[in-house]
């Protein structure tokens, strides 16, 4: 089943085109890694898909429901608010800076949306949250506040918070970029677990080895366009495009340095 379909997506800020005609699809259970240099439009693309930014042209379909499309006259039309609200619930997002709610405990960070937005009973939401906490290895932190956690722990809670809404697809915007190197492992481990469970995910990342290991498919973006996409082996070992090659080469060099 197709979870996400993006057609000819454009998004710019002022004069600058940031996403420049992007099309791709994601099937249920697929893990897609998105790599590319800074400023290549990866994050903006995610923000368009999660309704944090309005697109300027194109079409986005989530699980068969049209979220936004462009009329033949070039008018961008979003679904009505009620439908948009339903579609939004299918999308989960994990931010680079976690964005946990500092005034809520870990548990309440996870239960607030299911209770308030999902209409689930507090008891049920709490039970689900505790299960998720167990899964990410942080049961004992249920009553802690975000400031008492390490960055890695915060990000794991942020993943649990997104998962608690049972999204059809989970987006990650450079989930380990704000973390100290020794903390990235625990976050990647959680994402890996989700991948094993066939959670549909789209992960923007600079962790090349992680993308290579976990992704079913890798998308390389540059200048707001998809330059190349395919299975990780192909992208990493035998890239067909010159720009992909030079990007990965820089990466390898900087790793050795």
């Amino acid at each position, binding site marked *: 089943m197709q979870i996400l379909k993006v057609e000819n997506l454009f998004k710019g800020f002022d004069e600058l085109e940031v996403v420049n005609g992007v099309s791709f699809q994601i099937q249920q259970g697929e893990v897609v890694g998105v790599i590319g240099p800074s400023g290549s439009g990866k994050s903006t693309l995610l923000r368009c898909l*999660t*309704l944090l930014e309005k697109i300027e042209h194109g079409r986005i379909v989530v699980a068969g429901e049209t979220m936004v499309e462009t009329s033949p006259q070039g008018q961008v039309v979003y679904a009505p608010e009620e439908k948009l609200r339903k579609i939004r619930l299918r999308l989960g*997002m994990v931010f680079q800076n976690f964005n946990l*709610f500092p005034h809520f405990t870990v548990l309440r960070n996870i239960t607030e949306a299911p209770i308030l937005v*999902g209409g689930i009973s507090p008891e049920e939401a709490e039970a689900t949250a505790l299960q998720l906490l167990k899964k990410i290895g942080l049961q004992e932190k249920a009553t802690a*506040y975000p400031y008492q956690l390490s960055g890695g722990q915060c990000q794991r809670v942020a993943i649990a918070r*997104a998962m608690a809404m049972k999204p059809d697809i989970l987006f990650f915007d450079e989930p380990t970029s704000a973390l100290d190197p020794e903390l990235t492992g625990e976050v990647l481990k959680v994402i890996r677990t989700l991948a094993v469970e066939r959670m549909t995910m789209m992960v923007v990342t600079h962790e090349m080895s992680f993308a290579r290991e976990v992704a079913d498919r890798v998308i390389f973006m540059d200048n707001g366009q998809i330059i190349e996409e395919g299975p990780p082996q192909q992208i990493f070992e035998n890239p067909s495009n010159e720009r992909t090659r030079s990007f990965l080469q820089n990466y390898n060099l900087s790793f050795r340095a």
Partner: protein
Amino acid sequence: MLAIWDGAGSIRLLGLLLQGTITTLQIFLLTLLLSLPLGLVIALGRISTHKWISSPLKLFILIMRGTPLLLQLIFVYFAPSYMLPEGLSFRIPRFTAAIIAFTLNYAAYFAEIYRGGIQSIPRGQYEAAAVLGFTKTQTFLRIILPQVIKRILPPISNEVITLVKDTALVQILGISELFRVAKNESSRIFSTTPLFVAGLFYLFMNWIVTKTFHNAEKKLGYYK
């Protein structure tokens, strides 16, 4: 100075000052009760991207913060009877005029404090709430406002302390609040003592204000 050092004199003075204090507290509490919510509404309007909402409020804040509160008191009291055409003009009770002027003035100051607080909350908090499906109202009331309140407590306490002392200004409208009572008594007995005793009354009230805010800050100190 010596005139009040007999028991009857002191009791009489304390009685008068306490009466004045009741009026002072009425003005203080009513102003807070009205201006704190009004300030929030003004702040939200001031932040609005609609210019027809934010521009008039900007001007309002400029005027309220840019002219003497004393003058505003006089304006609110006299404007309805002097500035309105005959037939429409009316007299406004002194106490009501004082409350209106104080509320508008303090709401302007509070609005700017709220605005600073609201704008200091990182974008990410709004975005996280949006992605989780919170409505705008839910986001503001559950995620943003609680964090704003924690951040603005210190500047708000400053204003509240000033408000306790500013109540003395309403004597310009002939309202017998604490300071006016003390001043009258002072003239009557040819002694500055009542004024300094009144000073102790203000100090005591602000000691309570300070303690209250200190406790509130402590209570909200459970997170960072």
